[in-house]
């Protein structure tokens, strides 16, 4: 038997497979589903106001020549509360921000704005997540960077962190 080592090839393959399985068990795959609806126009929608005193949101309003953020949030979303100061900072820097409130009641949105501030120019109520689905968004909070022509340029999943704020301002500035 000149090629005795060949007998160990199946064992080695099994070992490699086992290694791969254990690796994936220990380090689960990335489960954030990114939107594929990027560099595409905002889907058409016309959402009613999410709460009294703040205008609703129409997709046609997002193509007024000014780059902006569209923040997908909800009053029941705990991480969204942590994001509020960063949105305030962006607003203070002159970034226009519109909101889409997912599955929310007007009184809850009002309470949320009262407690955590209102950086939004307009907030549309997405009662059945239909706009969220049309955007390819899979959770809250998510933020979309929209250029002046109403084209979605980038999706940020999860809470915007303080050190991302200058970067976002610069990106929107570059779209002007």
């Amino acid at each position, binding site marked *: 038997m000149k090629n005795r080592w060949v007998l160990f090839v199946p064992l080695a393959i099994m070992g490699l497979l086992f290694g791969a399985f254990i690796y994936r068990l220990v380090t689960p795959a990335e489960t954030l589903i990114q939107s594929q609806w990027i560099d595409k126009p905002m889907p058409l929608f016309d959402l009613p106001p999410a709460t009294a005193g703040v205008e609703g949101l129409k997709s046609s309003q997002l193509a007024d020549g000014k780059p902006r953020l569209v923040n997908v949030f909800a009053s029941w979303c705990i*991480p969204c509360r942590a994001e509020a100061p960063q949105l305030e900072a962006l607003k203070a820097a002159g970034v226009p921000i519109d909101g889409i409130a997912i599955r929310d009641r007007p009184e809850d949105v009002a309470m949320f704005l009262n407690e955590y501030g209102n950086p939004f120019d307009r907030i549309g109520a997405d009662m059945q997540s239909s706009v969220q689905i049309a955007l390819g968004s899979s*959770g809250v909070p998510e933020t979309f960077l929209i250029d002046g022509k109403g084209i979605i340029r980038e999706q940020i999943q999860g809470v915007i962190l303080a050190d991302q704020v200058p970067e976002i301002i610069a990106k929107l500035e570059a779209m002007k």
Partner: protein
Amino acid sequence: MSKTCSTSSRSPAKAGVQGGKVRRGRKVALDPRFRGGAWLLAALLLAATGMFSSLSLAQDRLPPAPYAYQQLKDPAQEARAKALMEELRCLVCQGQSIADSDAPLAGDMRHEVRSKIAAGESPGEIKTWLVARYGNWVSYDPPFDAATAFLWLGPLLFLAIGGWLAFGRFRRGASDGEDAA
């Protein structure tokens, strides 16, 4: 799992859920020495209840969308919708189909699918529409392409390797037999 899957919010306060696990139902003796313990237990239980109620606040309070839990009137349309819903992945409880998941977003996706079917769209069109937004990952029946080629062809490849090894072995066995004869 059901706790994290019942909301589409991104993993809020997981520590809170774990922290809320308090052993309940153990009788505390009325021995005065244990009174302090009883009070502590009561306080812990209260704190746990408080934690759960604040977590339940963390879910939306809207009723499900009309078609989330209601079938279409036309059985043929419902059958088409059902088949498609079983093929679509829930974005919150990944690993479940939207037909199986009770996450609010899955309910809203069922509503979306049934509404579109009722409006006359074909399942293929709806799938294309969703894949354009979430990628092939949203479907449990991904197409044959560069990313999935190995999955489809791998078994054939392994079968071929096995066949080749077995063939070599049998032939050698046969020739050994000839030598011995």
